[in-house]
């Protein structure tokens, strides 16, 4: 280890984020004896990350563009609190090169890569061009926008149908079109161009080969500023809904040692191409023939980093902090040991019976699971009102087991203990996924959840007994019986009075 550089370790870190990831970073800081500064919007007064931090600064109204995304407000809080570093978490300003540069200008360490690496990897086309120089293959297609329909036709023919048309300025699933054959190409080009022009003010589009039955697998990399680089295994992130990850695993059940080392080598080349340091993630698409293609690099900590931590024993947030403070990576590639398997479920405040629409609101009851192999990274508590202004991720539940199947059973057990009331959540969906044969056999692709939801029939599976017992419990609760609630009789109003008052209110 690099004990010699201890003296340069940060005294105080500002966390430019909220929710579970802010809590995660605070925990790492606390373990390292580093002071913590939270920033928060008006909607996050009393949020868990604010309650846990040593120092707190309110930075504006609920909308993130008026608070968490305002560089000046965050830097002002950092200056006032005399924080010597800023951890950006994920999302918000974490992949904003201008923010990283502004931190440097203020003499505050940005815990992440250089602004140049962020900018390079932030441009899809630039990133592909850069990694191509190092022999890393992206999804076949054009690096530059196609200039004419004739060029589009010849590129499409050379990469082979089906293809995807993508708007250069696109993102978030917009400006994307699937083209199955050359007959469809002309009208697809026209439509995508006009859609791109309307949505992004730019009708430049490029062409990519469509990868059938793709899996989404990403490699965790760590690099220090002394030229040391390691890859810390991969994560399987194929289970997605609307291009959003829902369940992640480490290791990927389809990656063997041979594929892992090939992907790891490619990831290290991407690190070189980007001149990268700190923690990062290289995303690949993998087809059933085990060919993989570079998709993009995420120049920050990933949401799903805990599965890697459970399997490798590393603490990625602490490593980020150490590398940012100038320390060397404390281990070499050959010292990395992967043990067992871990799965993460992203618990969202959303309504599975209403097209998974966000379901913010007050959490009336919260009982998270515990026990062997379970880790929960949560950003909420019982009584907290999940604000409508941000991503509805409330918690990440992670299970570790000696084998993948043991991790799955532990997750199923943990989910059965988990109780969230007051808001809707996607807990029940995870039980369906984990019990599904395709998931258990690791035989899935990115279309898995859509197929599962389509196959699901609306009929609920409750038994008459469950319904009866629910009815009994509701009457007990309604009656507020002293013997049942444990309240003393004088504190309890007559059930009739309460009932009458409630009905009166309801009629208003």
């Amino acid at each position, binding site marked *: 280890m690099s004990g010699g550089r201890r003296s340069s370790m940060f005294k105080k870190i500002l966390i430019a984020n909220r929710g579970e990831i802010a809590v995660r970073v605070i925990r790492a800081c606390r373990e390292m004896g580093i002071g913590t500064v939270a920033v928060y919007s008006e909607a996050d007064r009393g949020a868990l990350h604010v309650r846990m931090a040593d120092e707190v600064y309110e930075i504006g109204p609920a909308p993130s563009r008026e608070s968490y995304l305002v560089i000046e407000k965050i830097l002002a809080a950092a200056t006032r609190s005399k924080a010597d570093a800023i951890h950006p978490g994920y999302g918000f300003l974490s992949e904003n090169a201008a923010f990283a540069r502004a931190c440097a200008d203020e003499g505050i360490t940005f815990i992440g890569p250089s602004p140049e690496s962020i900018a390079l990897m932030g441009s899809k086309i630039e990133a592909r061009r850069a990694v191509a120089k190092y022999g890393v293959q992206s999804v076949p297609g054009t690096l530059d926008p196609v200039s004419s329909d004739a060029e589009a036709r010849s590129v499409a023919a050379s990469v082979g149908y089906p293809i995807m048309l993508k708007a250069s300025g696109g993102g978030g699933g917009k400006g994307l079109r699937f083209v199955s054959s050359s007959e469809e190409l002309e009208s697809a080009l026209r439509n995508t161009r006009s859609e791109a022009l309307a949505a992004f003010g730019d009708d430049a589009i490029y062409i990519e080969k469509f990868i059938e039955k793709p899996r989404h697998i990403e490699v965790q990399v760590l690099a220090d500023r002394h030229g040391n680089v390691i890859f810390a295994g991969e994560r399987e992130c194929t289970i997605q809904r609307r291009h959003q990850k829902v369940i992640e695993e480490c290791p990927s059940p389809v990656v063997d040692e041979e594929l892992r080392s090939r992907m790891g080598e490619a990831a290290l080349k991407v690190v070189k191409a980007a001149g990268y340091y700190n923690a990062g993630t290289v995303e690949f698409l993998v087809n059933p023939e085990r060919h993989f293609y570079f998709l993009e690099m995420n120049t920050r900590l990933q949401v799903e980093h805990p599965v890697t931590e459970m399997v490798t024993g590393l603490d990625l947030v602490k490593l980020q902090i150490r590398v940012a403070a100038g320390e060397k990576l404390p281990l070499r590639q050959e010292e990395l040991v992967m043990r067992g398997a871990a799965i993460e479920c992203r618990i969202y405040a959303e309504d599975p019976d209403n097209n998974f629409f966000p379901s913010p609101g007050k959490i009336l009851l919260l009982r998270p699971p515990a026990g062997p192999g379970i880790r929960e990274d949560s950003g909420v508590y019982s009584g907290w009102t999940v604000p409508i202004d941000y991503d509805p991720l409330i918690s990440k539940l992670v299970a570790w087991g000696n084998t993948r199947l043991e991790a799955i059973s532990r997750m199923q057990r943990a989910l059965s203990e988990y109780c969230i*009331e007051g808001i809707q959540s996607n807990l029940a969906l995870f039980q369906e996924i984990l019990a599904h044969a395709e998931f258990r056999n690791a035989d899935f692709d990115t279309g898995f959840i859509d197929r599962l939801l389509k196959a699901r029939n609306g009929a609920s*599976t*409750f038994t008459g007994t469950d*319904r*009866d*017992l629910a009815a009994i*419990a509701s009457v007990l*609760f309604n009656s507020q*019986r002293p013997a*049942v609630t444990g309240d003393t009789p004088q504190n309890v109003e007559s059930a009739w009075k309460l009932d009458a008052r409630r009905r009166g209110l309801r009629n208003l």
Partner: protein
Amino acid sequence: MKHTLIIDGEPLELELSYSGTQVEAEISGRKYALDAIAVETGVYWLNWNNRSIEVAVTADKAGYTVSLNGQRFSIEVVDPRTALRRAAQGGYDGAFELRAPMPGKVVKVLVAENAHVETNQGILVIEAMKMQNELKSPKKGVVRRLAVKEAAAVNAGDVLAIVE
């Protein structure tokens, strides 16, 4: 004592008596004898035929949400006359106010004022947090009022339409 409930839109008659933690209940001829203890606020532990069962009850605007064995029931405890009337109208008596569940934008209005709608027919689509959500009529009836137009911005709780 006799209680009338509306459980997921359907009426249910429940006879219940208790002594200490011992509860006896009867629902449509099905008899239950169980031990019930409030172990946490809103959480009941039941011993029913030596089965250990936990039930969570939380109150909301519409009544109670009751969870057990991973299932959720929406329950209201009402007087018998209300129950009958609501059952006949798909769970809602009188005028139903369709309200915005969260702030957003109305992207589409699917029905006209005074149109007849069926239970679960879409009334309008709102977009919030980059997602579109179709709001449906919970009852059969007539759209008495459309309070918003397409492209309108709405706040949580705003009345969007009234179905009677």
